[in-house]
């Protein structure tokens, strides 16, 4: 029977993986995937706390749904930006997208 701690450990691992991807990957699509992982780690946290700390309340689950919606929006805008960047700069590597760097 898994307890709250198990969920939190999984969530923390998932968040760390996401952060690692965001910090280390050069590919913009991979970075967006890292961001998704971090958001979902937060979602696990939200529903886990909802279940174990305040079982009668619904706020945690609703908040998780909102985050999923936000994540979808973010993916849509982010991928659109990646496409636009690829069309003008012919690259998706963030270290090469540096036209605004001094």
């Amino acid at each position, binding site marked *: 029977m898994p307890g709250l701690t198990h969920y939190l450990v999984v969530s923390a691992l998932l968040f760390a993986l996401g*952060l690692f991807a965001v910090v280390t990957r050069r590919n913009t699509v991979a970075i967006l995937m890292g961001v998704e992982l971090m958001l979902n780690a937060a979602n696990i946290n939200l529903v886990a706390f909802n279940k174990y700390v305040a079982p009668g309340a619904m706020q945690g689950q609703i908040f998780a749904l909102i985050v999923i919606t936000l994540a979808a929006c973010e993916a849509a805008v982010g991928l659109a930006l990646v496409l636009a960047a690829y069309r003008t700069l012919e690259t998706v590597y*963030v270290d090469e997208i540096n036209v605004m760097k001094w």
Partner: protein
Amino acid sequence: MTQAAWIIPLLPLAAFALITAAGPRLPGRGAYVSIAGIVLAGIGGLVVLGEVIGGAHADVTYTWAVLGAKPITVGFVVDPLSAIMLAMVGVVASLITIYSVGYMAGDPHYPRFFAYLSLFQFSMLFLVLADNFLFIYAGWELVGLCSYLLIGFWFERPAAARAALKAFITTRVGDFSMMIGILIIFLYTGSLRFDEAFRSIQGGALAGPLLTAAAVLVFGGAIGKSAQVPLHVWLPDAMEGPTPVSALIHAATMVAAGVYLVARTYPLFLLSPNHAALTIVAYIGGITALVAATMGVVEDDIKRVLAYSTISQLGYMMLGLGVLGYTAGMFHLITHAFFKALLFLGAGSVIHGVATNNIKQMGGLAQVMPWTAWTFIAATLALTGIPPFAGFFSKDQVLAAAFAHDRVLWALGAAGAFLTSLYMGRLIWYTFAGTYRGGDPGAARAHGAGHAPGPHESPAVMVVPLAILAVFAVFLGWAGAESLGNPFGRFIHFAGVEPVPPNFGLLVVSIAIAVAGWAAAAAIYVWRIVPSESLRRAMPWAYTLLVRRYFVDDLYAWVFIGLGGLVVRLAGLFDRYVVDGLVNLVGWLARQVGLGLRYIQTGREETYLLLVFLGVVVIVVARLVW
């Protein structure tokens, strides 16, 4: 006309504005406009003089501003003193302006010359009419500016540019003293109007040593403007300007403004305890009269000889005012204005004819330029005090007043009178007698171009003003003659200061001194009993002292340019290395900090994210630990 006397200065001002705006397109390239302005002003001045003799008087005042409870009033006064000055300035300036048409012919900056001349005439007439310290100070500065502009008229010559600067800065020293004096008077009396301020001083608003100090400070302005010792150094150098300028500004009018100032503020000096301020005026004047005359004896530049003579004669005027000879000082001012203007215009005519300033290169000019020569000689006789020429009457009145007051001052003046005859005799014999010594072969002056070679008489436009001035130089003295009841003395006098009765013994002595000076000049330069070369060999130290002008210029150069320059250089170093250093240090520090910090700004979002994450970790850990 008397009530509307304020229009008189505006006529030359209008001429100035017109010439400045339209310049070469005007008739006579501006000259006729300038002449019209000053001649009308001169006629106005004569009309005013006539009305004032008939008893008219005007004092137009209005309040310009109120400082605290102290109203500053400005206005014009027409009384005998300003009326006689108006007439004198108007007549002399008219003749000089007409003369300038001939003298300046062919100069590339002809309209500019007349514009400046008109501006000067306005400033001088404005100064003369002032009834308050504010206007007289404004006029004072305006004439100083015009003097600067006209001395430096040929500014492409470095000597002229330097002389203009020297004149301006030297007189500024005096002007500053005058300003302090005026401020003291304003502070204690609460009025800038002459009559109110003097009434207030009479009532005891300002007394004792402070009154003397205020009077002496105001006199400081006169020392600068009238080139009295120790601020006399600028006037000889001012001869770099065109000769009509020397005649108008540096002989007849502006330099006499100092004397006029003392006469105008005479109650200030008179009320000073024990006549201390008047004694200072008298001694400065007496010393100047003698010292300047000695320097004139060794000078070879015809205009510079006259410049020293002017300084010396201004000294006589100051001496006259200082020894309670109010009428005598003013009378000498008026007569001197006419004959010294004539001398300068004559010198200009000579320079025009021979294209050199050096009297040792002239000679024999009496035959080729008789009009110039004879008018010049008439003016010289007036200057040296030979009866019945103008200077005899006025100088004798000054000396008589000095004799009655203080024998030392009389001795200074008498010695100066002897030297006056000596240097003027030398000038006459070098310039007009003997044979022509060839002029300056290398001289090429702008106005000399296109003339026939060799000395020649000047055109009529120059000679006629000479002749008119000569009439004044010969006959004007009778206006102050005792035998005719001294009409000048009845017109210009200061209540409470009565002229001394004529002293016939002294009169004879004065004439004897003047004649002795001529005789000495003749003995040295004509009969050659004691040739000047042997005199120079016998007294080399005296000759050096005089030629180097008592080392006053060297002293000023050493003190103000050497010592002052050192201070300036030190201040410059302080500014460059300490003040600038501090400012630069601040900039340098900001730059270095920025240069260090810019390595954080990689422009890579990975770094930023990592830093954000590390920041969160630090905050969380810190929260857990505490």
